């Protein structure tokens, strides 16, 4: 199983070098061919970005992402406690909560364009543009 970060969802909706790989990831999850999950916290972040208008017209992105990823991973007490104890100065509170959520649900891989996850204890980042790592990941079957 792997965790899908906010930027993967946003970049799937934005013309950029990340777009096709991110769409490939979302498609594989939508077909049920890849065990990608995300959390309520990620979709809240997507929703704020959508509502801000600062990343262009992303109307309906949070709702579509919810359709793809439902049921979402909850941010639990345990996830938050882990986030608070994480020695990761490169990460802000929300990214720490994502790592805590991974920890709680036994997820070791975060798919993200954010290099801030590199070197964080307990998770390994896969960049969507890393073709080899991405294809290996998408070969994984849902549990």
């Amino acid at each position, binding site marked *: 199983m792997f965790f899908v970060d906010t930027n993967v969802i946003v*970049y799937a909706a934005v013309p950029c070098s990340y777009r096709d790989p991110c769409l490939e990831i979302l498609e594989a999850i939508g077909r049920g061919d890849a065990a990608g999950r995300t959390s309520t916290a990620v979709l809240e972040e997507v929703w704020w970005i959508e509502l801000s208008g600062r990343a262009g*017209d992303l109307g309906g992105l949070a709702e579509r992402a919810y359709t793809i990823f439902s049921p979402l991973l909850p941010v639990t007490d345990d996830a938050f406690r882990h986030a608070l104890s994480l020695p990761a100065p490169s990460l*802000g509170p929300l990214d720490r909560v994502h790592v805590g959520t991974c920890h709680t649900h036994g997820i070791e891989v975060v798919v993200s364009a*954010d290099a801030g996850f590199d070197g964080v204890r307990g998770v390994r980042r896969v960049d969507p543009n890393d073709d080899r790592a991405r294809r290996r990941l998408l070969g994984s079957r849902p549990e």
Partner: protein
Amino acid sequence: MYAHCMFKERLQILLSTEQRRRLEGEARRRDASVASLVREAIDARFGGVTADERLRAVTGIALMTGRFLPPDELDRVGEEERANALDQLLRDAAR
């Protein structure tokens, strides 16, 4: 939620002692039946969204034309929007 449903399928499963203890504890806490909790868990984990609906959502996203922001700026947008909402809330409360 299940008031108008007919349950016709019988499923017998094996659980660990710990899983049964947790399930019965939660049922007592909520004053609900163990069976209703199992049905609720199935709906939550394997919700009602079909693969076609998920793929239609992906197609919808593929048609969007947003604007690229680097990952750290995306993080900032989320944080600032939340902070702005909180500021507004505090301003409203102070009125």
